[in-house]
């Protein structure tokens, strides 16, 4: 059946996200929280995360444009970002956050800039993957036919 195939596909994609290190255990926690009361819980959380963190990204970009760099502020922003990213289990994004914080502490402006580029890349990649994942989930899943809130 198409649905079965979809579900299998879904499972594979999901597994690869873990295998490739995009997601960690926290994502599973979210999945476990999903229930009848909140059938789209995971998707809602991810959406919330991307909405909230996009603002953070803007703040960080602004902070990175200042000269000289305010490392304390940057560190604080990164701390926030890291905390946020940990909420959905965005493993690679989190790792970049940690790296960026290291550079902040070291006072390395170049390091910060480079790492931030890397971070944005991971952030965007994950977003795309999750969007595709949820879209598929909606197709494959029996109940979730609601439009994705944007």
């Amino acid at each position, binding site marked *: 059946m198409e649905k079965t195939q979809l579900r299998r596909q879904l499972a594979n994609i999901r597994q690869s996200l873990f295998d490739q290190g995009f997601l960690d255990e926290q994502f599973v*926690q979210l999945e476990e*929280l999903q229930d009848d009361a909140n059938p789209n819980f995971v998707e809602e*959380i991810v959406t919330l995360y991307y909405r909230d963190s996009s603002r953070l990204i803007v703040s960080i970009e602004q902070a990175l444009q200042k000269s000289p760099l305010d490392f304390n502020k940057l560190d604080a922003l990164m701390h926030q970002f890291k905390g946020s990213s940990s909420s959905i289990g965005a493993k690679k994004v989190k790792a970049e956050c940690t790296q960026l914080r290291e550079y902040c502490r070291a006072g390395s402006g170049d390091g910060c800039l480079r790492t931030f580029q890397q971070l944005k890349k991971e952030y965007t990649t994950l977003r795309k993957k999750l969007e595709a994942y949820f879209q598929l989930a909606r197709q494959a899943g029996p109940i979730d036919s609601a439009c994705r809130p944007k």
Partner: protein
Amino acid sequence: MENGFSSPRSDVFPVGLRVLVVDDDPTWLKILEKMLKKCSYEVTTCCLAREALSLLRERKDGYDIVISDVNMPDMDGFKLLEHVGLEMDLPVIMMSVDGETSRVMKGVQHGACDYLLKPIRMKELRNIWQHVLRKKIQEGRDIEGHDVFEGLQILRNGSDRYDDSQFLRVEELFSVRKRKDVDKYEEKEFGETCSTKKARVVWSVDLHQKFVEAVNQIGFDKVGPKKILDLMNVPWLTRENVASHLQKYRLYLSRLQKENDPKACFVVGMKQTDSSLKDGDGNFSVCSSLGVPQTDVTNSSFSFLGDNFLHNVDSIGCEADRKRVVQEQTSEPKRAAATELIKTRCTHMKFNNSFASVESEGKLVACYPWVEAPQMKLKQESKPHQVQINQLPSVSSISSGRSATEKDKGSSIESKDCSQQMVHLNPPKPPTDSFSGKAKSFNEINDHFEPISTATAPLGVKNQNVIDLSSISTDLGSGFPFSSFDEDLQGYLIQDGCYPKNLEQIIEFPDYGDPGIFTEGPTHLYDAMRFGYEYSYDPTEYPVIDEGLFIA
């Protein structure tokens, strides 16, 4: 304790536990809400610390526990933590993605029951009810000061080492008091306070109000159980009741003060046996600034909040490590550190001294209560609501008898940051003045107590925990910035390994403001300790404290 907002759980505890979650991250807020709901808890969320505080104040008994993130835009999580502990005396759990030991330590020092690292697992949240239970038990013990004290005496005399488990201690204490009461207590609903279990004085709001009025009337620095009792004019109340309540009150205040001035908090506890002065059996926590090489921080909880305090006091003995950690305060100007002298084995005897925090200077300063005191005063002036109390002689009263006054002065006087509704202490003036006199006395004291005055291992304190005492003396004159509470800066001295040994005696530092005390010599230490309970009767100088503070 129900005010109608949310009734106590009618189901089996911990079902329906009322949790308030505070986090500026909306994603986490949602996740936590869901997790807590899955635990069958009743959840309220908010993303601003101030909002949380107003919610808590609105419904004082509306929540059982608070979970808060450390980093929030409008208010530092630690500050919120202090406020909650002070005003509502609820257990608070901190959360952060940052698990650095120093941060965790800070959380514990500020009174957090627990510190969770993000990402948080469901199973961690399932267990939070333990903190609620523990707190209730502690409260019960607090109220029943007498019993606790006796229990402590028994414990103290009876054991050499202490179990790390606070619960064990709690049970020990309970067994001293009455086992059945405890069991009953633990089983019943948590809608009631422990105090109602026994035929004890229940300090109702009205009664406490009278108490506070009496205290204010007398003048906090002159307060004593007898005077209070007379003023209160409550026929059925005994001097002992008042005394134990006064003790608790002082502790509460000192905790407030400590919270207000996190930087300045030093927890000092001293336990000494007769020989301690000489052979170093005594344990006392020396406040040290950052420089102190503190390796073990096991029971930093020891310095916190009043109720915890009792709990901690008990565990002080068993806690091998007490550290005073000075938080990073690079950006902060020097602030007075609230030093708290904690008597380890006497719950009712808690001293809270605020000492200037050294952190800001990055200096290592061993904070001995009596030593620090003078410094504190110097800075106190800068902040009116600061602890003058702190400065007050929380040095343990070495002199027999007067210990109470001295100590009392220092201990609960600490007031919390008055910015909110707390206690409004008299402006630091009086302490300041007294301090100048005291400052000198400290030097005398230092000289007088040889073991203490040595930089390294005074009173048998392990070297590693003792920062250069002599430096303290010299610093005394330097005028430590004893500014108002700096939430960030809260140092608690944690003694390393000294405690478990001899808990027979606790050294109370006499009011350092009174040089005469020190000259009495170490022998008085033990006496003072013994009568620790008594010394609380003689007030020396207490700043007036706003009644609002202590409303349960």
